[in-house]
């Protein structure tokens, strides 16, 4: 099983003729991901990576190459269009790597996806890997190992760090999902936790949060009600300078200070062990699963 991506993934890379898109298409294919098509408007007819066809539209990639998952590398000003195209073409999972997408664009994409019943991950995220099965993202493959720990995170490189620590301790991962750090993201902690709960290969979950917002508090509330599997959390930013304030509105909306202390309290109350350093995580996972 694993979640989101696996052997059944048939990937189309939107923006495959760009520098980043091309590089990571090759990396993902090398990892064993089934990269079935690229899309680059006006460049339909090309072949890349020896035999991967490039199309003008995602609809062609779906129809002619059987794509069911998309990863987006197109620049921010065109990212919304690319996501909507992917949703419109019937792609079931779209991973948006692109950084600097305006939140108003993400908002429109997220609503459109919700109405069509399809899933977005990101933007501004490292993507998803199910080690040994498929990688739909930009993470360095070497730090991951197949196993039973699900990882979900708002961060990029910190996710790699935690996965590396798990791997070094002999704890492989079922799937690792970077949901992205933007104010508005397609998939939140709750969505991924729900998938991990249902996934038979996942035995424990690591949640990596950050200061700011109330996503971790919401996740803690969800875990306490819906998760039977053990969860270990780590929250970065204890030492971070206070973020630039968003007027009064930010504080009114979230109703939390968004500090590591507040988030730690929420997790502890939900029965979630909170690691003080990333290196504590493997031991906490081991202890939790032993019970």
């Amino acid at each position, binding site marked *: 099983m694993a979640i989101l991506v696996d052997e059944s993934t048939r990937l189309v890379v939107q923006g495959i003729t760009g520098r980043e898109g091309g590089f990571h298409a090759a990396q993902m294919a090398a990892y064993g991901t089934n990269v079935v098509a690229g899309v680059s408007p006006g460049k339909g007819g090309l072949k890349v990576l020896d035999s991967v066809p490039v199309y003008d539209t995602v609809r062609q990639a779906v129809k002619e190459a059987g794509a069911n998952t998309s990863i987006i590398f197109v620049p*921010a*000003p065109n990212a919304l269009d690319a996501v909507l195209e992917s949703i419109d073409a019937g792609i079931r999972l779209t991973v948006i790597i692109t*950084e*600097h*997408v*305006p*939140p*108003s664009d993400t*908002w*429109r994409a*997220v*609503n459109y996806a919700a109405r069509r019943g399809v899933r977005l991950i990101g933007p501004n995220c*490292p993507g998803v890997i199910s080690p040994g099965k498929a990688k739909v993202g*930009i*993470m*360095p493959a*070497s*730090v991951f190992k197949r196993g039973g720990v699900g990882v979900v*995170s*708002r*961060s*990029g*490189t*910190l*996710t*790699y*760090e935690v996965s*590396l620590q798990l791997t070094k301790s002999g704890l492989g991962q079922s799937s690792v999902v970077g949901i992205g*750090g933007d*104010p*508005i*993201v397609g998939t939140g902690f709750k969505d991924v936790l729900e998938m991990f709960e249902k996934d038979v290969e996942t035995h424990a979950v690591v949640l*990596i949060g*950050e*200061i700011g*917002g*109330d*996503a971790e508090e*919401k996740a803690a509330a969800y875990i306490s009600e819906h998760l039977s599997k053990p969860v270990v959390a*780590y929250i*970065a*930013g*204890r*030492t*971070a*300078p206070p973020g630039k*304030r*968003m*007027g*009064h*509105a*930010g*504080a*009114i*909306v*979230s*109703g939390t200070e968004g500090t590591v202390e507040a988030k730690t309290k929420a997790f502890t109350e939900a029965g979630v062990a909170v690691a*003080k*350093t*990333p290196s504590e995580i493997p031991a906490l996972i081991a202890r939790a699963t032993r019970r």
Partner: protein
Amino acid sequence: MKLYEHEAKKIFRDIGIPTPLGEVVTSVEEAKRAYARLAQRSVVVKAQVLVGGRGKAGGIKFASNVEEVESAAKTLLGSEIKGERVGAVLIEPKLDISRELYLGVTWDRSERSPVVIASSEGGVNIEGVAKTKPDAIKRVHVDPEIGFKPFMGRLLASSIGLTGRVLQSFADIASKMYSLFDGFDAELVESNPLALTSQGEIVAADARLNIVDDALFRHKEFSNNSDERLAEYSVLERKARQLGVQYVELDGSIGIIGNGAGLTMATLDLIKYYGGEPANFLDAGGGSSEEEFMQALSILNENPNVRLVFVNILAGITRCDDVARAIVKARISLGMSKPFVIRLAGTNEEEGRRILAASGINVYSDMDEAAKKAVEAASKV
């Protein structure tokens, strides 16, 4: 990008939201002349800074004659409010306020949508109201299909107890503030207080408009004056912004560079956990080249508080050999003599390790071990 109050008020006025009609001045003499031109006895003199909490920090003064205006301008101009220098003050007629309302538009991360927030209990204590009397705060979330429609403004107005002509004006202002939010790709449009005057008019006594940096490509009108907005940052923070890297100064002595915001935050936390004090937060970004990394190092080189540099890289897109070469070059071409503690892992780790070994620099592959070493070494510098 944050706009100054007087800039936000100009934009409010242009779309038809009533604001007091004041003048922005940068000298005491100008302040006196502006007072004369306003021809109002009672005025308010407001420091134009981008930090929040200005009122509580003494940045707002009332005056009823030219001497008081002079004194207020003298006190404020050139002073610092929460670390930000006051370069200008806004002088406005004092409003005859019967009630302070609140109206703001921002992003609600949980609901993944814009939210328009209203309260009949606005003013400096609005956040306290939000905590102690959550029912006094009303919200409308916005569906992208139809946006924020006039009726939603009326619903908000009605829900905070407004009626009659005031309900209509409030609804109209809410629609216009949402138009600004949408049209300018804002992350915040706010008026607190939104004043209800004794004459039954609604006037934006304060105005905030912060634009999402990621959307500035759609708002070229602000590209010219983005430099002046850097006033709130230190010289090195400005340099970092120009390089496109995230850099914030702190009080400690261990300079820190990581790649990725989360890993860099975790690195600061780890240094602190082992008893050290970070001098800064510096995220070199996810895919920085040798040259970019050297530029990032130059910032720490120029920061006199940095006694030791801790580099923590888990390379994905970034390549360890690029980082290693940047460090070697920084020591030569920047004459960087500060000691380094370096942790490298990931892409081209071996190559990076080899390059640094050739320059006599030791490299750790484990983050904990490296952090402990950095704290230990910093205590000896």
